[in-house]
């Protein structure tokens, strides 16, 4: 029983990270129908920036994400404005291929800059503390708390600010939003900026416990896809649910199936994805946008 509860706690902590990791992907998809195949590569970019700041100026990753987010906001804004907005009227597979191209470019730019050697951010507080006999790794708990904070912030932003309302309107009906005077292209670019900034923040947070290398991105993209399909597109509770479910599933398999460890993450996410798409293709929660399965 104790082992089970400990695994559940680990799963929830991992799920908290997954939830904040998937936010950018989910909102981007929910608001403008862009499936961002470069998601994992933006996360990797954030992790590398955190490593750079930690290594050169010894800024803690949890502080440097305040510097990384504005930079990556600009990157996302530019990407949407000058590339993806050009493909708005084209079939959705054009944007899919374009983001695929971006993922190749980002991974290889980082390989050229930093070489393919794995890096890690060795923060001084990497232990764990105990509450009622269960151990809580400090970094993962910190990520969990910050993740919940970010999600709450984004939820309030989307729900109550003028810009947030414009973003939701653009997601619901592009043309109607245009009629009431929303500058769709600008709103899209800002949304992409926010999403990429969040993704990079997730990357910065994971940097102390994950080896950073240029090709680390793909599993994150694939898992983000599964979680988004699981939880519904563009909804923050959905991201939380999808992240928790996948995190728990992964930790449970790692705990109870011997000799495998966490190597099966992508396999599990593929199985979950296929099961969900066959049994409940509309996702577990209603999303911002209907999933167009045809």
């Amino acid at each position: 029983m104790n082992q089970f509860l400990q695994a559940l706690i680990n799963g929830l902590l991992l799920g908290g990270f997954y939830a904040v990791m998937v936010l950018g992907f989910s909102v981007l998809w929910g608001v403008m129908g862009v499936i961002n195949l470069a998601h994992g590569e933006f996360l990797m970019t954030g992790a590398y920036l955190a490593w750079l700041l930690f290594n050169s100026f010894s800024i803690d990753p949890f502080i440097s994400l305040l510097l990384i987010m504005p930079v990556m906001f600009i990157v996302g804004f530019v990407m949407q404005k000058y590339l993806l907005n050009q493909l708005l009227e084209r079939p959705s597979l054009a944007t899919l291929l374009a983001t695929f191209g971006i993922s190749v470019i980002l991974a290889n730019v980082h390989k050229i800059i930093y070489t393919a050697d794995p890096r890690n951010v060795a923060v001084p507080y990497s232990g764990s503390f105990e509450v009622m006999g269960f151990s809580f790794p400090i970094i993962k708990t910190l990520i969990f708390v910050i993740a919940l904070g970010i999600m709450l912030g984004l939820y309030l932003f989307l729900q109550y600010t003028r810009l947030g309302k414009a973003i939701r309107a653009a997601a619901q009906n592009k043309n109607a939003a245009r009629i009431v005077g929303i500058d769709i292209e600008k709103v899209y670019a800002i949304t992409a900026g926010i999403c990429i900034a969040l993704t990079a923040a997730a990357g910065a947070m994971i940097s102390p416990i994950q080896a950073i290398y240029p090709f680390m991105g793909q599993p994150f993209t694939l898992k983000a896809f599964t979680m988004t399909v699981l939880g519904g597109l563009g909804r923050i509770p959905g991201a939380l649910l999808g992240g928790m479910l996948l995190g728990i599933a992964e930790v449970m398999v790692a705990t109870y199936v011997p000799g495998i460890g966490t190597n099966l993450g992508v396999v599990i996410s593929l199985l979950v994805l296929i099961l969900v798409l066959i049994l409940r293709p509309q996702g577990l929660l209603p999303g911002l946008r209907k999933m167009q399965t045809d």
Partner: protein
Amino acid sequence: MKKFSRILLRKWGVFPLWGLLILVLSAYPSTGASSIDLFTATQVFLWVTLASNWNLIGGMTGYLDFGHAVFFGIGAYTMGILVTNTSLAFSPNLSFWQALPWTGLVSVIFALLIGWATLRLKGPYFSIAMLSTFAATRELIRILRPITGGGSGLDLPPVLNRVGDYYFMLILMAIVVSLMGWIRRSKLGMSLVAIREDEIGAEMRGINTTFHKLFAFAVAAFFTGLCGAFWAWQNTYIDPDVVFLQNRNILMIMMCMLGGLGTVWGPVIGALILYLLQDSLWSNLADYHLLVLGILLILIILFVPYGIIGTLKNNNISFLELLNLGNKTKAKFK
């Protein structure tokens, strides 16, 4: 005479030219070509075959398969396991020709199992499910250490036969491209294009869409598996990272995009151009070659979405129309 040639072209297209090209190419090794030239030519044939296969499912049927290299890997590993005697679990130790049919068969079975699940998904969902399949299979191969050798890979018996390799790949390419041309003109190909253009409509016209999709998928997987098996034999060493290489997915897609999705000759031209480009990039600026390819992919999407052949056809370029390259319908990127 002119009328006769026009009828001939309409009926057979450029296939007589294609046959002539194959004949000319088959004489190439006897002209005293160097070993390295033969190797390059073999690689070009390999990529033409791969791109044509991808085009069957991605271009004609409209299911953009982002993980098609998984069949390449399955073929390579089947070959590796069957011919090697180093694997711990069992050592069948077959010869190349004995193992070859099994590699195709295993790829087809794998394709039917995977396709049964993933081909229900449409558009981006299928693409990502296949990308997941690709990554998941790589992880599974790495974990199944007793059979596949895990991360340290398998060593195949070293056999150096450049001329034999050349003819094997030339014949495979000739078969595959001719088959694609035939499929494109047959009722089967029409059904596939109908599925691409409007799947529900096709189903209402009485086309068994599930059968057609699975068939196209299995054919593409069969030949891709053979290519993988050949590659493993030629390379004499396989491990999960060199076999399940993400670049292979990207290149297959880009070759079809550059040449023209859904056309018969697009992948041939695209593969020729891109392989030679990639080869020269690789030897001149190895670190940057994937970066350049990524930028190229985005440029193709932005500026030549229909590919070379598709753009020419959409603009009714006359001599190509006379040559009747492929079909009259617009190569539509869907």
